[in-house]
């Protein structure tokens, strides 16, 4: 894994995918070739320090020198990010954190995304060896809240789950995941998930029940992003203290951590 670098990227494209969800393509020729699936970039939001902190965003799919970021407008920081225009410079630190481990060729990789949690899984899907079979599941409240252009659904054989039944499986993505894994127990399965904590908790349960390696990508409040401030702590399952999401994660094997309280 390479050490993080500082790069001033350039916003190439910014699209409003669905209400509050944005997709930003950033030209970052030095950082993009170093990035591995599951890693993140730490983005400077305001030159005036309001809001104060950088925002960590998972690195989405990469096209040569261009990384895709997917984010939801939740507060002032992401609102300012969504207000950028093509040609704007963007101050990035990355790639940061530990990536998803690569499964062996005989593995069935099960990628489970909740909403914008799909971003690192799109890069994982892109990075997995061709020989690896995969199931790629995406859950969302409704088709109108999609975090991605639905052309991906066809391209990647993305299986959708919607709470309101507006597309794909009517129900949550965890139930879809359980259903699709029935009858697959004989296979060598790895689960990779990113999404809201309640979803990750249930995916962890599935992994425990099946006894399969389960990797979760976490999002928590973060300061420096490089392991200096120790703000982004997550409790170790063995009682030994805390791991840092920025340095030891954001990808953790589910059995190693206690998920943050929601």
């Amino acid at each position, binding site marked *: 894994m390479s050490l*993080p670098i*500082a790069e001033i990227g350039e916003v190439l494209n910014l699209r409003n995918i669905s209400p509050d969800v944005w997709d930003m393509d950033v030209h970052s020729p030095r950082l993009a070739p170093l990035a591995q699936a599951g890693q993140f970039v730490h983005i400077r939001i305001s030159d*005036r320090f309001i809001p104060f*902190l*950088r925002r960590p965003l998972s690195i989405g799919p990469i096209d040569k020198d261009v990384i895709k970021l997917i984010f939801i407008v939740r507060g002032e920081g992401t609102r300012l990010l969504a207000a950028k225009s093509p040609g704007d410079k963007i101050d990035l630190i990355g790639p940061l954190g530990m990536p998803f481990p690569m499964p062996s060729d005989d593995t069935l990789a099960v990628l489970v995304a909740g909403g914008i949690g799909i971003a690192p899984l799109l890069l994982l899907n892109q990075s997995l060896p061709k020989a690896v079979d995969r199931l790629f599941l995406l859950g969302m409240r409704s088709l109108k809240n999609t975090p991605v252009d639905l052309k991906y659904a066809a391209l990647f054989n993305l299986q959708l789950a919607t709470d309101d039944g507006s597309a794909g499986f009517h129900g949550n993505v965890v139930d879809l995941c359980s259903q699709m894994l029935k009858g697959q127990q004989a296979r060598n399965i790895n689960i990779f998930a990113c999404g809201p904590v309640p979803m990750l908790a249930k995916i962890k349960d599935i992994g425990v029940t099946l006894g399969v390696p389960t990797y979760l990508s976490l999002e928590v409040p973060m300061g420096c*992003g*490089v392991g200096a*401030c*120790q703000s982004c702590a997550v409790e170790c399952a063995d009682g030994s*203290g805390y791991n840092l999401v920025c340095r030891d994660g954001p990808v953790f094997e589910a059995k190693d951590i206690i998920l943050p309280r929601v």
Partner: protein
Amino acid sequence: MIDTSIQMGGLAFRTPLLTGSGTFGYGDEYRTLIDYSAFGGIITKSISRLPRPGNQPPRICETQLGGLLNSIGLANPGVEVFIADKAQILPFDATQVFISVVGDAVEEFVSVVEKLEFVPAVSGYELNLSCPNVQKGGLSLGGDKDAVAEITRACRNVTKRFISVKLTPHHALVAPLAEAAAAAGVDALTMTNTLVGMVIDAETRRPKLGNVTGGYSGPPLKPVSLAKVWQAAKAVSLPIWASGGITCGLDCIEFLLAGASGLQLGSVLFADPYAPTRILREMSEWCEKRGVKKLSDLIGQLKT
């Protein structure tokens, strides 16, 4: 070319810029990202005698108007692990290296300093007598001038190296604490630590920090720390290290005028780790425009 060098307590600093303890880890985390040459010195995250896991998360949140609240809780691996893991990589780019030392009792401070005396790259210590995020030690010791004097004197007895004492902003009267530390033989005072604050999420009816309260830092703190620096500089003739709210060169000039000799960059590094180089440039430009040849000529030049 502006002369940015500062002499303090027998040590030469190539610039007055220092890192605020807790914001720059143990010094190596940023090594591939930034140029360390703008720093006169680095102050590490606080080290205790035994490992401390730190506080329950969440440990950080933003406040309105560009402030920051943290409750890390002095998470650190303990002095022995620190020496084993980090001592070899000190110092970075020939800056002065200060180890922030914390403890629950006098003996703990002394024990940590004694162990660090064997690390040759260490220039000195900053005694953290003001952490707002722990039950014992920290604020509860740092608010008592007799405790400040006792801890400082005990550490002074086991080291000839540079010592600064980081004081609390919570006391209305700076002078008694500053005088107590000065009489006990410190080389500098750090003014100051974070203020105790809290942020509440009305929707969930929960505090935003796992520890409920935390230390308030960032640009909104600057007027408080400017006042503490000025008060300390009036009370004692020691160098003062300013800490609290610095984000730009003009902030630094103001702190120098108020009486600071060292300028700690803290929270600003999270948003802008390149701040040291920028701030040094901004200070130099300010001085060049006004015919100031040496940064040290500005120290304590406030007209009141």
